[in-house]
């Protein structure tokens, strides 16, 4: 399947939960309603024509300071899927608001989502509902805030932790 056919298939199966599609620079992208995310990812993995068996990457983008999108949903959770069998790719995105930054987990579909979702929680503060163990991945437990958010200043210092000498 080429990218356009993949997006067509997603639209046909998921109907109105596909909010938007585009193919910037040859990367075919579908923006999905957050609630339909498990169904969409499950379809991508299990549909034999789609066959996306690898969750290549999972990350998020904070659009708080993006020109023209300051008022829209703040975060976008981005899934990059790849199919070993068909050698094609697709990007799935879901938009979430700041005050309700929760996305259904993808751990039942791909175990790698465990660490990747922990990293997104760590860096952006987006929660993954149903994740078995949502701890910080890169930062330490005592760290306050989520450093990749646009309103986290790059030069903020946090107190040293560790055994007191």
């Amino acid at each position: 399947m080429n990218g356009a056919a993949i997006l067509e298939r997603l639209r046909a199966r998921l109907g109105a939960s596909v909010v938007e599609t585009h193919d910037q620079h040859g990367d075919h992208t579908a923006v999905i309603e957050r609630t339909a995310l498990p169904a969409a990812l499950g379809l991508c993995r299990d549909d034999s024509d789609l066959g996306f068996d690898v969750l290549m990457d999972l990350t998020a983008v904070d659009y708080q300071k993006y020109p023209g999108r300051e008022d829209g949903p703040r975060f976008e959770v981005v899934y990059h899927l790849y199919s070993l069998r068909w050698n094609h790719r697709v990007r799935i995105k879901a938009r979430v608001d700041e005050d309700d930054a929760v996305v259904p987990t993808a751990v039942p579909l791909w175990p790698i989502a465990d660490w990747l979702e922990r990293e997104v929680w760590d860096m952006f503060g987006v929660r993954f509902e149903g994740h078995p163990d949502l701890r910080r991945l890169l930062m330490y437990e005592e760290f306050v805030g989520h450093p990749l958010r646009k309103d986290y200043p790059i030069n903020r210092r946090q107190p040293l932790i560790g055994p007191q000498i």
Partner: protein
Amino acid sequence: MAETTRREIMLGEGSGTGTGQNLTVGLGPAHPAMHGIIRIVAELDGEIIREADVEIGYLHRAFEKDCEVGGWNNAIPYTDRLNYVSPLINNFAYANAVEKLLGIDVTERCKYIRTIMSEISRVCDHLTCIGASAMELGAFTVFLYMIKAREFLWELVEDVTGARLTISYGRVGGVRADLPEGFEAKVRAAFKQTREVLDEVHRLLTGNRIFMDRMVGVGALSREDTIAYAITGPLLRAVGVGYDVRRASPHWAYDRVEFEIPTQKDGDNYSRYLVRMAEMEQSMRIAEQALAAIPGGPINVDFEGRPIDPAAYVDQGKQGKTEGLLLVPITLSPNLEGQNRKALERVTAHDKRVVLPPKETAYGSIEGLMNHFMLIMEGYGIRPPQGEAYFASEGANGELGFYVVSDGGDRPYRVRCRPPCLPPMAALHRMIKDEMIADLVPTFGSVNMIGGELDR
């Protein structure tokens, strides 16, 4: 009084009789057998690991956050420090992601240079990985041999980039400078020596009883698990899946060279070792073919007139003696070698919005000077249109992806690196489960964790 068991002598009082509770041991963060800083909390039943929890993040340096602060090209030095054993691949992959966003294409010669330098880096990476793993199993000779071979290759890298590790050679729109003179001959000589080393190592390790006892069947991961954990690169090829970004979505010059994708079936440490050994030969094959086919040829300075030094160049420009000035080659200081106009035209995209002008133009004409300023000044610089792009290249450990988002400004809005060694580390607890604690060492070595890209 109960007799002190041998277990209690070894593990301390209260450790039970061998049927009691398991012992929790923290390995690391700093441990001699760890390639980077990482902590493994292992639950041991005697010498067998029953459960393990891997903690990472000790080398987190805010790579992605730092990228958002400077210009698009300012991220290049940070990418050096992702996989610091093969930094060239990171440079080129990042630069190519931004080029995808800009919609520009680099020159043919640049594509070949990226191919050649990436393959040299891949050999360096595999040499380090196998050498270090072998050393941890007692084969110190192999380590020294392989580091010797890596030294030959790093000399090549030094020749081209001026540095050995933190090379910063990639640029959005091309590479920093052209290849030096006589590079091809040096590469062939270095590869000849590297092949000799690999041959020696094959004879020392591949059939070695001790080595095989420690590697065969150890640290295995099934094909299904490997795919579900999104593991790519040598570890995926060691379970029989011939996925390689160079073949699956050919970029640069990979569609114009012949190479094989070595695979194995078992997915254990020994298979990974064999895959890496075979890959080094293929990488050298690719680099040799690319060197033979590289367009542009050697640098010929066929201008009229002698080269002049930059200060005189600027003076002449200021005095208005600009007629024919731009045709005069410039004598560049050694650290700018390979950046004269002829060389730069061959290796960088011809796009004023992205690529710095050659020094002749910048020193000799007002247009060139303005072009230079516009790219360097804050608030100007490279400004990709709003949008997003994902570009994947084959790093030494698997798919190295960069996802870049631009808001139309001169700084990246978001740079995400998909680190190739994070998925195998996420699956490490599966590989070491129910195996001896001593087997952790070769397994950890075969995963080839690179702290720089794992923690970013």
